[in-house]
């Protein structure tokens, strides 16, 4: 356990240093490049959120994009209201086109930045909490969780497109104002904004790791291995599952808020099946057992997409698909599992060199 921790902490340190110093230096502090990388970092947050529920508790949430999208819409609604301040009644333009005459009540709270930031975390968390109670109390597991979350995602996206009067429909929310963060006018092409996103990523990872290292994390891993046995020990399995599901949703909402800031619009594609499964792909590539691994997976896949899709415009998706199949077949634990295996082998060699007899340790699955 201690040995594992040492290499993990080392890995975390390398990751944090790379994000804070390595990346900006490698990009030459170029505003455009920093903005692109900030987008990858916000996607890394949602990947870590999925790893928290999938890798730890074995809850495969195919609807993670739902919570992400709600976060994005919350932020976009605030920025849209700021941008529409000059209009009569502060009414956003698309509402006028759809014959909405006054601002609906559920748009009102987003006038305030504080309420927006709080709701961006609370709305996804509340939604996931309700779903968690709904599913986990009935001991729904595995494939059925995947199906229910997927069906929910499709329904939510249809609803967002249908309610064009209030959500902008297929176009989403565009023409947003820049964020005024307590007096700081956020320029999304600046180093300061990059550090804001990077700080959020590191904070989210720290929060997640804290949960994983605590007793809660231990119980969650036990639930992943055998929920029935954990129940016999008297733990409230549904309660733990709901907790991690909602926490993951809140973090995903957080990521969504940042994503809407980076791209300066919110669109129903954020709540789409393709995007949701893309998140699953990133996590599987990086390694579902490790939050940092999942984050790295998201960054690498998106980086590859950014670089390769220029070179291979047509075949990029083909490369992604084939690569993903190979990962699932041969590296089911992702890049993290590969590293872990390497570290374990190294440690074993060192111990053998020191003349100590050690049994090969079965690493956690």
């Amino acid at each position, binding site marked *: 356990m201690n040995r594992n921790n040492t290499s993990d902490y080392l890995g975390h340190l390398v990751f944090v240093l790379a994000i804070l110093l390595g990346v900006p230096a490698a990009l030459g502090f170029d505003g455009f490049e920093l903005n692109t990388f900030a987008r990858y970092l916000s996607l890394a947050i949602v990947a870590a959120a999925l790893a928290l529920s999938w890798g730890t508790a074995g809850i*495969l949430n*195919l609807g993670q994009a739902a919570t992400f999208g709600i976060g994005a819409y919350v932020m976009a609604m605030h920025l849209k209201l700021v941008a529409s301040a000059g209009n009569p009644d502060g009414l956003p333009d698309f509402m006028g086109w759809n014959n909405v005459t006054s601002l609906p009540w559920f748009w009102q709270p987003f006038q305030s930045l504080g309420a927006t930031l709080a709701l961006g975390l609370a709305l996804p968390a509340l939604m996931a909490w309700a779903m968690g109670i*709904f*599913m986990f109390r*009935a001991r*729904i597991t*595995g*494939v*059925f969780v*995947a*199906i*229910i979350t*997927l*069906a*929910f995602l*499709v*329904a939510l996206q*249809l*609803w967002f*497109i*249908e309610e064009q009067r209030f959500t902008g429909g297929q176009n989403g929310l565009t023409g947003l104002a820049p964020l005024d963060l307590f007096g700081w006018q956020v320029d999304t092409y600046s180093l300061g904004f990059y550090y804001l996103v990077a700080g959020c990523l590191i904070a989210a990872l720290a929060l997640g790791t804290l949960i994983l290292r605590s007793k809660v994390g231990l119980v969650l891993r036990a639930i992943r291995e055998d929920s029935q046995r954990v129940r016999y020990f008297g733990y409230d399995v549904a309660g733990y599952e709901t907790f991690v599901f909602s926490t993951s949703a809140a973090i995903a909402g957080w990521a969504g808020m940042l994503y809407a800031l980076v791209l300066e619009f919110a669109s129903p594609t954020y709540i789409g*099946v*393709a995007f949701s*499964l893309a998140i*699953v*792909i990133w996590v*599987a590539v990086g390694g579902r057992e490790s939050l940092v691994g999942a984050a790295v997976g998201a960054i690498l896949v998106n980086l590859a997409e950014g670089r390769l899709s220029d070179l291979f415009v*047509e*075949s990029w*998706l*083909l490369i*992604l*698909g*084939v690569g*993903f*199949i190979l990962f*699932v*077949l041969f590296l*089911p634990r992702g890049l993290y599992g590969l590293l872990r295996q390497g570290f374990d082998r190294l440690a074993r060699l060192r111990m053998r060199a020191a003349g100590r007899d050690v049994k090969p340790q079965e690493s956690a699955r």
Partner: protein
Amino acid sequence: METIINQIFAGASLASILLMVALGLAIIYGAMGVINLAHGEFVMLGAYVTWALQSFLGMGLLAALPIVFVTIAAIGWGVERSIVQRLYRRPLDTILATWGIGIVLQQLVRMGIGPESRFIAGPGILSGNTSFGNVVLSNYRIFVLVFAIGVFVATWALLAKTEFGRKLRAVIQNREISECYGIRAEKVYALTFAYGAGLAGLAGALISPLVNTTPSMGTYLVVDAFLVVVVGGVGSIFGTAVASGIVGETTAFFSMLLNDTVGRIGVLVAIIFFIRFRPQGLLPQIVRR
């Protein structure tokens, strides 16, 4: 009155399409526990093979059906042998791998044939409508409905009456013991997967005159079909048939009362509740564990 009959028929038509798509999925899921998210792409390939036969060889849709079935079954067989067979011990991972397969197939078609929507003509002898009093029904949709029922009966007979079906049922119940009796389980699995894929191809060919044929047409079909399979009950093709009927008619009914999108949302929410309270489905298979 006419509106109601028309809506019932619209629901039945939708149900027949759902049944065609879901039947192959149900067999694959029931037999091997594999959630085949590439199933929608098999449907898409079926539609494109029909298109190719029609525009390059001038073959009619009906004549193309057997060729489509065999072609897509062969593709399914290849996919099972190369990828899916390695994942039988990791059922959740099959979701991921088959999604990857879906991306690859979609992209291959997009690159090879192009992203634009293709037109496929329905069979000439089935054009036109049949009217009963004031109720007007499209001949082609009636044909699809009858055909789907025919395929369902054939599939049932295959499972219940043939030696292959007996072997498959034995392997589903207990793979190890059936292997002791000399049944080649992997061969049975590969053929089952191929058959399921072939059915998807047939579905694609049949729906191609009714929908837009594009490389991404499979994505939403597979979600719908999968919901139907789960509602019907794992491993029960009768359940799948009943569930397609219910989902098709409910969608048509909601769409009449509200509108298409709200109807779809309503059905999805109803399905979520159904799975929550009855995850074993409508007609669960009784199995000894």
